[in-house]
Structures are given as structure tokens and as C-alpha cells.
């Protein structure tokens, strides 16, 4: 393993950040403080964190609707993330984007898309910019198993392969698109099986194991930076919560069995990562506990910060529409 103690602990810290962040969002939502949709990332933390651990600050990421985890994994400030979700001025987007749009361009977080798969071409374009401007940053886009069926993915992968773009297509296969099993929406066994149709490597990886995701991404990043082109990675993961906050009120019938959910939850990515750190002698139980409790405080502070941040003023409505106002 090429990761050292500090890196592994930072990964653990970020996974905890995401987990507690999401738990806070769920609590806030059920209190009625948050009205819009929000899609918890709980259960998938190892994917975002493993992938972003292989990236530099100037590498770009783009995400999806289920995208609280991605910006946090990339190093985004949880205070500003939480403020955004509450629609406050101190949010990443001054409250204009919300849960599905947590961007921080200053550290390569190009934002997410509520329209499924719509950020895949955007990330491909970021990689094109890297190539054209002879920089060596890479772009990585997170998208779901459901998203993989959109034409936007096909077009982007074809272009990226044709032009050897430094882009990583990271499909988070959590088994479902809302209630639709990926077995009923993807016509082959694995999304990564489709890589060969573009002439790029397709890598299937355990998405509950942050280190495995890091390894696959690290190799894809190496390829990308070396000008060898794109990689399609499929991380098998699971969403522990319902599709979206509030949707549990709508989805009454079962679309996944409780046995399946229970089984999947046994492979908690935080537990797995913590166990690896300890069993390999990188960290002690106490050190891990310490990380957890620091993160808990950080999230409490983020909620506090977000709650105290003011709402935008009516006069802010038209700001940010145009670079040169019309």
C-alpha cells in the first residue's frame, strides 16, 4: 500500500465528515428546516474519499444529484456546504444552488448536476481544457449506475477516448436508480464492461473499500496525466438511506429487500477503513476515536455556522446571473 498513516487518517477523517454531515442534514430535514430535496451519500463514502485521495487540488471534479460527499471528499469546507444547503449567503453558491450544487471552483469542485448525467460532458470538457492548455490537471466525474444509460455518457466517453483526454469516469453503482435495479436498466452485467466499446480500460472495484477505490483512481490518474487517456471505473457500492430525503414518505412498497439492505450495511465503508488502519498498524483505536470526535465537533460547528449565516437579501436576486449584466 502506497498510502501512509497521515493519508489514511485524512481519508478516514473525510469519510467521517461526510457521514456526520449527512446525518446532520437528515436531522435538519426532519425538523422541517430544509424543504428542498437532498440525497444522502451515506454508505458510499469510500468512493468519493478514495477517488479524491488520488487527486490534486487543481484536479477538477464534477458530480451528480447525490453530491454532498464529493465536494467534502475533495476538501470543500463543510461550513460553507452546510450553509449552502440551508440557502444562506455564506454557502458555496450564496444560497443559489443548494444541495445539488455544492461547487467550490477554487479547489477544483466544478459542481454537480440535478439533471442526471449532465455533468459528464462538462468534466470531459474540463479535461479537454487541460489538454489544450497543456496543463496536467485531470478531471473526474462521479455518476450513478442509472446515469450510465444516458446518451451523454456515451458521447463523452467516445470523445474522451478519441482525444486521449485526462478524464476519469467514475460510476458509483449503488444498485439502484431510485427504485430501479441496475439489473433492469443496464443491459450488461457491469457498467465497466462498456469501457471496451470505447477502447478504454474498464475497472471494477469494491466501492466500500476506500483504499481499493484510491488504487484504481490513482492508476487512472497516472494514465491520464501521462496522456494515455481516460479510464472508466465502476465502484460497487450501496446507498444506506432512501433515495432522497422525504421520498421515504412516497416509496411505500419495497424495491429492495430488508435482507439485502441489512447485508449491504454490514459492509460499512467507515468500519472497513477503520479496521484496515488498525489491523495494519497504522492507527490505534484511540486515534480513530479521536478523529471521529473531532469531526463530530466540526459538523456541529458547521450546523451552527450555517444556522447563523444570514439569508440572502431580496436585492441579491439578480446578482450572479451574468458576467456582464444585460
Amino acid at each position, binding site marked *: 500500500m502506497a498510502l501512509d498513516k497521515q493519508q489514511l487518517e485524512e481519508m478516514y477523517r473525510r469519510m467521517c465528515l461526510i457521514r456526520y454531515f449527512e446525518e446532520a442534514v437528515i436531522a435538519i430535514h426532519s425538523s422541517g428546516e430544509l424543504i428542498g*430535496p437532498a440525497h444522502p451519500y451515506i454508505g458510499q463514502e469510500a468512493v468519493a474519499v478514495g477517488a479524491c485521495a488520488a487527486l490534486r487540488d487543481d484536479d477538477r471534479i464534477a458530480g451528480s444529484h447525490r453530491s454532498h460527499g464529493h465536494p467534502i471528499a475533495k476538501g470543500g469546507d463543510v461550513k460553507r456546504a452546510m450553509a449552502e444547503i440551508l*440557502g444562506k449567503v455564506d454557502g458555496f453558491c450564496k444560497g443559489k444552488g*443548494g444541495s445539488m450544487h455544492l461547487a467550490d471552483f477554487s479547489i477544483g469542485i466544478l459542481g454537480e448536476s440535478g*439533471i442526471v448525467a449532465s455533468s459528464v460532458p462538462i468534466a470531459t470538457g474540463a479535461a479537454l481544457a487541460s489538454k489544450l492548455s497543456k496543463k496536467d490537471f485531470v478531471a473526474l466525474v462521479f455518476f450513478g449506475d442509472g446515469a450510465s*444509460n444516458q446518451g451523454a455518457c456515451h458521447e463523452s466517453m467516445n470523445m474522451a477516448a478519441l482525444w486521449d483526454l485526462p478524464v476519469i469516469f467514475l460510476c458509483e453503482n449503488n444498485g439502484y436508480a431510485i*427504485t430501479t435495479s441496475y439489473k433492469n436498466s*443496464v443491459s450488461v452485467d457491469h457498467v465497466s464492461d462498456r469501457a471496451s466499446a470505447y477502447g478504454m480500460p474498464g475497472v471494477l472495484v469494491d466501492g466500500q473499500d476506500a483504499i481499493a477505490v484510491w488504487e484504481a483512481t490513482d492508476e487512472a490518474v497516472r494514465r491520464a496525466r501521462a496522456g494515455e487517456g481516460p479510464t472508466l471505473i465502476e465502484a460497487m457500492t450501496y446507498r444506506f438511506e432512501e433515495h432522497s430525503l422525504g421520498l421515504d414518505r*412516497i416509496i411505500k412498497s419495497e424495491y429492495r429487500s430488508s435482507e439485502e439492505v441489512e447485508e449491504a450495511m454490514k459492509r460499512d465503508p467507515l468500519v472497513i477503513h477503520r479496521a484496515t488502519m488498525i489491523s495494519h498498524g497504522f492507527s490505534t483505536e484511540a486515534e480513530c476515536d479521536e478523529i471521529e470526535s473531532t469531526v463530530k465537533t466540526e459538523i456541529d460547528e458547521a450546523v451552527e455556522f450555517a444556522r447563523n449565516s444570514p439569508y*440572502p437579501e431580496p436585492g441579491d436576486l439578480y446578482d450572479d446571473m451574468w458576467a456582464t449584466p444585460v
Partner: protein
Amino acid sequence: MPVKTYIQAIQEATIEEMQRDPTVFMMGEDLRKSVYGATAGLVEQFGEDRIIDTPLSENGFFGAALGASLCGMRPIVETVTSFLWVGMDQLISQAAKMRYMFGGQAELPVTFRIRMFYARGAAAHHSDRNYPVFMNTPGLKIICPTNAYDAKGLLKTAIRDNDVCMFFEDGIAISSRTEVPDNEDLPGGELLVPFGVANTVRAGSDVTVVGIAGGVQHALDAAKTLETEGISLEVIDPRTLVPLDMETILKSVERTGRLVVVDPAHKVCSAASEIAATVAQEGFWSLQAPIQVVASEQVNVPYSPALEPLIYPTPEKVVAAVRVVLD
């Protein structure tokens, strides 16, 4: 008379038409588990062949619905305004144009049921009110029911219609409840609302207020407020935008001399603009005051609960517009 929600009305219309005609079937995302609420129990009743869950491929399955309709089927497609952009090519280049382009050979009995969310913190990506965009290209019938009665009657008409119907389900109207008669109490035994016939929801004499989609309720609320001041609004709900019953609107303006149009869509090139322009052309001599359009601010939909409510029409904005035309 039983009171029903908009969603119930849609579900009833669907079930009745599916029972009546075996070529009617549904395509869409997560229909079987009824994520958008109007398809609960349908797969149990009609089977997987008639309630088809599609992959996330709007352009693909919109087109597949069109292709199936060319071969004798009558698909109902469920989707959301904001996802129409993804399938736009099939909607404009094929749905709107095929029949004409093929000299009338193509029958396209497809109904797109389109949920229109807004005003609930869903941000710019999930808050489109884009029916005006589909009015520009000829070939699509545009239906905007504003209550459960119309939702049922217009949906049944749409499913039986042999043209492509785009049925916009206003996210504000969706939670409303209206009286919807039982079939046995109806002459003919069923509820069918014709296209192109506006509904004068409230008769009045001072100002004509045309409400579109969620705009109707704002108009009615404004009418109530102004009633106390002795100002009488005539509120018209066109119900369908293509075909559009301009006659009813023009006749009303002839009497009132004043027009306010309320449209939750973005103002520029909106349905409200079209109605205003037509009245400025054909009803000009009736007008005694400037036409007022109350539509959404020309800004993307902000997420923040502190900003989003500012952009849409409200009863207060309608009241203010009425005062302008009466000034």
C-alpha cells in the same frame, strides 16, 4: 359530489383509459413504485407489459414511445419538465414534425404527462415551467389543467387524441382538491373535457385576468381580495394553450377593456406574452389600459427560501397589476 386530489384524478383517468383500450400503456422512470405518486398499484392491475419502467434515457424512451405510437400503440409517458430538455430532439424534431413531414401518414397518439415542480426549493435544475417553449414549434398540443376536474377530463381527452399531447401538471395545483363527479352521475358516463375551450372560472366586469397553470389560483385569490373593494375580476383559465381559446379571452376583454395575464413561466416569450401580443393585435380597440403581464422574474430559479418566492407570480402581484390597469 366526491372531492378528489389532482393526483387521484390523474390516476383515475389513467386507469379508465387503460381499461377501455388495451393499446394504452405507460412508460417512464420508477412508475411501478409510483415515485411521482400517480401510478400506484397500476403494475399490479395491468402488468409489467403495460407499466414499463425505463432506464434513465429520456431521449431514447421518448422516441421509443413515438415509434410505438406509429405502430398502433397509445403510450402515456411520465416525466418532469426539466427532463424534457434531455429528450428535446425527439420532442421537437420527431413528435412535433413527423405527422406533417410524412404528409399525414404518421398518427402519434402519445401523451406526455409532465410534472412541473417549482416553488419548493428544488433549485434551477428541477423548477422549469417550460410549456411556452413547446408552443413555438407547431405540432404539439399543450394542456395545463389547474384542478382535479380538468386534470381528469383533459387527460382522458389527451389519451384518446391522435396527436402528441403534452400534459403539464402544475406542482402547485397538484395538492389541490376539487369536486370530481362519479362516472355514473355523468351524462355519457364519463368525464371528458374538450381541448380549446377556456373556462371562465369566475365572471366579473372590471378586469379580465387570464391565469395559466398555477396562475389561476393567484388570480382567484386576487379576485377575492379585490371584491371587498368592489373591484370585479373575470378570471379565465384557458386550460389548453395549444389549441388556445382566444375567442373567450377577446370577448371578455371586449367587455372589461382591461387585461392582466398571470403565468408562472419566465416572462420573456411566455404564454402570457403570446396572449398579450394577440390581444394587442386583435383586441386593441377594446383595450382601455395597458396590458399587464404577471410572470416569473427573468432570473434562474434560486434555491434559497429567502429568494425563490420572490420570483413567481403571487396574488399580491396580481392585485398590484390590476390596480395599474384600473389607474
